[in-house]
């Protein structure tokens, strides 16, 4: 879009009432998906609502792509902010048809400011067959897709999504996730995505903000944040890293696909993704074990040479987290402290990372 405009989001909010506090000072990228991750009560939704102007936080500061939306002298009301907002429940206007729902916001945007056409929004979310129906005739997943298209049809400068999948069952989530990935690939605007689901974050986010009790514990590129050993404790069983790579080769005989990334390559189950496609893989810390020799007599398919970078305590006193460097790419392994002692693991040591499971996440 406009390359001259300073891009990025600056948000500073401090709120303290009825036992709940929010105290953040964030600088977020002006493009890509930023996940606001945290457990319920961490303040992630309040932060999103403050950015939308739905929550008035006195003394806050907010600048989006060079335009001040809130400071000491300014408070742009929500309807004057060029944003798209997707609520946890689709919240369609049930007195209007799907088409009229989609047009509702678009009509209120001056024609000169319209960059997304109704057809584009409809096509992007695959909702053409639904246009003439009423909202109560749609499934939960369909409603949420309409709600996303409705937000996009206003040509927003930023898209805010508050756990758009949380109210849906697993099947409906699987139905919508591919569309969210398309948004990620095709939209030129920043997306703030509130979630408490690590798998959604691993799949969609480029940038991660971890919130706890109203404070931002960490904010940075997804890979960097996930490889930090002080945060996985908060992720529990979901601790792990996400790697970016592309499909380099398919093995038709064994139905496997080889994903090449900066630090080497990994074999994953062939899920029909073509060679050359950019993919993300997620490796959970509990699926990574450490060996001093390269075992060839093991069932484990993916074994990478790596260097030990850091050891840290884990949630349980029996466990330890180890950060490995596999050719410049960080991996996190969860092993027992006894094993760490037996192998005499220490920073700088060369080891083999045995990866038991790799999940293609998009």
């Amino acid at each position, binding site marked *: 879009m406009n390359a001259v405009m300073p891009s990025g989001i600056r948000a500073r909010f401090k709120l303290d009432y009825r036992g709940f506090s929010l105290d953040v000072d964030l600088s977020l990228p002006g493009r890509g998906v930023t996940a606001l991750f945290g457990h319920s009560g961490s303040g992630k939704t309040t932060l999103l609502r403050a950015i939308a102007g739905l929550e008035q936080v006195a003394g806050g500061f907010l600048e989006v792509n060079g335009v001040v939306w809130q400071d000491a002298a300014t408070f742009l009301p929500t*309807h004057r902010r060029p*944003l798209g*907002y997707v*609520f946890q429940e689709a919240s369609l*206007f*049930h007195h209007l048809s799907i088409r009229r729902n989609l047009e509702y916001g678009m009509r*209120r945007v001056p024609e000169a400011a319209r960059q997304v056409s109704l057809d584009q929004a409809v096509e992007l979310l695959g909702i053409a067959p639904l246009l003439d129906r*009423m909202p109560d005739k749609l499934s939960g997943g369909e409603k949420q897709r309409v709600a996303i298209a409705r937000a996009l049809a*206003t040509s927003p400068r930023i898209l805010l999504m508050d756990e758009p999948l949380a109210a849906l069952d697993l099947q409906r989530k699987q139905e919508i996730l591919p569309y969210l990935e398309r948004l990620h690939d095709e939209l030129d605007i920043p997306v703030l995505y509130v979630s408490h689901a690590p798998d959604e974050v691993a799949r969609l986010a480029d940038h991660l903000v971890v919130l706890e009790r109203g404070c931002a514990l960490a904010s940075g590129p997804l890979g960097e944040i996930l490889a930090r050993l002080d945060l996985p404790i908060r992720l529990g069983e979901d601790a792990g890293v996400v790697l970016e790579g592309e499909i380099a080769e398919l093995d038709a005989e064994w139905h496997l696909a080889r994903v090449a990334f900066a630090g080497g390559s990994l074999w994953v189950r062939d899920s029909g993704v073509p060679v050359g496609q950019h993919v993300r893989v997620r490796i959970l810390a509990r699926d990574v074990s450490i060996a001093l020799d390269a075992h060839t007599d093991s069932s484990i398919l993916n074994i990478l040479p790596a260097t030990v970078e850091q050891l840290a305590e884990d949630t349980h006193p029996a466990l330890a987290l180890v950060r490995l460097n596999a050719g410049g790419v960080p991996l996190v392994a969860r092993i027992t402290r006894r094993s760490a002692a037996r192998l005499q693991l220490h920073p700088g040591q060369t080891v083999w990372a045995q990866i038991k499971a790799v999940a293609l996440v998009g």
Partner: protein
Amino acid sequence: MLGETDLAAIVLTLKLASVTTLLLLLIGTPIAWWLARTRSAWKGAIGAVVALPIVLPPTVIGFYLLVAMGPNGPVGQLTQSLGLGVLPFTFAGLVVASVFYSLPFVVQPIQNAFEAIGERPLEVAATLRASPLDTFYSVVLPLARPGYLTATVLGFAHTVGEFGVVLMIGGNIPEKTRVVSVQIYDHVEALEYTQAHWLSAGMVAFSFVVLLVLYTLNPTGRRK
């Protein structure tokens, strides 16, 4: 059968109910909106004042309105200084009294409808660039339609059915303040039971049809 005075009473009643209902929808909407949305400590007090006509005998309302609108009452002084004369025993006076008397029957259904809509559709509309006033017309009013239907029917029917307030404020002036309910009273006083029967049966039929229409168009528990 119906005589000339009976027909005049019917026309007057319909005119009174129509004007009253129209005024009530205009006055009742902001009151209902305020009651539905406010967090003010006054909410309870204002809500109670609006609901008073439900519990008070019509004669009490009529009495105070008569005093207030009379030549020495505050409203009477105001209308006199504006050159409007005094309101009791006029059609305008009846309208004012009816508006007070039927207020809760219009405000409460609309207020309930506003409350049922909740906060979310308003927030959604704001994120879709609709100003608060725009939101009111494009989202709140259409969603509150069942409430408005109930309010209109109840306001109209309740005004048609009033007797005590009319007698206190309007007296019994043919073609000016003599509505159907008063006309029936007159017939009975004069032992004209046949005429009383015609008008009374007409009222029963009218009320039944009104409620039937209301319950058919607006069944409870079938909100989309």
